[in-house]
């Protein structure tokens, strides 16, 4: 027998990525049967996040205030602006500990065959950012896919038009690997991007 509120919960859970009907049912029964307190916490956390999280007006990343703490930090170099596709990329770069400038999160990439162009990506926000006179170098850290490359190239042109240096993070051989096992596309790119030793 179907209980409408349980069905509704299952349907709601299925909106999560990777959750099919079976997993949704398992989750629903688990929360209702064994972890009501957990269920309340999840509901509350989702409600708070949805209410409070917006896009930072400076970097476009998720933030709980108008300007996020990364953008407000005085210890970060305002002359360096790193462009990434997603909030997850910011997390990765921060974990590397190698970047101390600021970020701009595109929340996507140009994808011509899917109809995602500069307008759909909201590139004018980035342009306004580049015109504020603070940025001296953009570090293009979009993915090394053809769409990521197209996006990097397009932003590099905008940056140059604004008189800002544009650099692309290097691509090549992963650390700890042997040349014999590297695919030839990666190898060709690494050779193309070689530098003085």
């Amino acid at each position, binding site marked *: 027998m179907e209980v409408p509120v349980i069905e509704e919960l299952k349907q709601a859970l299925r909106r999560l*990525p*990777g959750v099919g009907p079976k997993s949704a049912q398992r989750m629903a029964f688990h929360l209702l049967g064994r972890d009501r307190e957990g269920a309340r916490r999840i509901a509350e956390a989702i409600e708070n996040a949805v209410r409070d999280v917006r896009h930072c007006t400076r970097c476009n990343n998720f933030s709980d205030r108008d300007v996020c703490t990364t953008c407000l930090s005085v210890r970060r170099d305002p002359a360096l602006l790193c462009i990434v596709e997603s909030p997850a990329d910011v997390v990765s770069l921060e974990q590397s500990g190698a970047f101390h400038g600021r970020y701009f999160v595109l929340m996507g990439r*140009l994808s*011509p*065959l*899917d*109809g995602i*162009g*500069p*307008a759909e990506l909201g*590139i004018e926000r980035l*342009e306004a950012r580049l015109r504020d006179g603070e940025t001296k170098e953009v570090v293009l850290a979009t993915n090394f*896919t*053809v769409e990521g*490359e*197209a996006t990097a*190239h*397009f932003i590099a*042109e*905008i940056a140059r*038009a*604004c008189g800002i240096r544009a650099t692309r993070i290097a691509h090549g051989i992963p650390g700890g690997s042997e040349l014999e096992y590297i*695919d*030839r*596309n*990666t190898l*060709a*790119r690494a050779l*193309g991007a070689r530098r003085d030793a």
Partner: protein
Amino acid sequence: MTRVSGQPVFILHRYEYGETSLVLECLTPEFGRVGVLAKGVRRANAGYRNLDPFAPLLIGWSGRGELPVLTHVEPYGIPLALSGRALWCGFYVNELVMALLHRHDAHPGIFHAYARVLKLITDKGRQDAELRLFELVLLRELGYGLILDGEAGNRVALEPDTLYRYAFDSGPCKGTGEGVPVHGRTLIALGCGQIGDGEARREARRLLKAAIDRQLRAPLRTPKLFRQISQHATLVLKP
């Protein structure tokens, strides 16, 4: 159960399927355009993951129906390095092939013309001409070839200086009526696999665009994005 191995392909487009998989739209010489399901390739520990358009690959697949499963993939031949405007030309070519070539419609000629145009668009000075020649071959291979060897009906030799109107159901006609205006010399050059300069190039572009538009079910997206991007660049360049 169909099992295919060692098939050279170019990936035209790919989209996410479920949480960890991709559907690859591949162009092959023997099977035309084929959709292949690449299971689990978006997992962090997946093997070969460079499943981007424009990279020549050798793949295998197995299964019947619309979406067989990828069984093997490796890089094949010399990798191409498309960047800047060449990359955008490549996107256009991919969208064009996706739009005009149906799945499982084998045309070895299209595969070879595709491999050729990808190489040639890396030469900045030849990009536009090579795109037009690719369009010409694509239309011919699909059975929508232009009539370039004489006037409609009687096949009387074309005169370079005459302004014809090209009617798609019959060919180049003299006089007034329906059709795309185009000079004889533009058509003669196209017939020899050449694209002239200046006016001839503009005419060839207009004629081929009209010929392609007739076959499309929906307008292509990449030309609109090109315009957006070039407008954007000029906007930015203005102080």
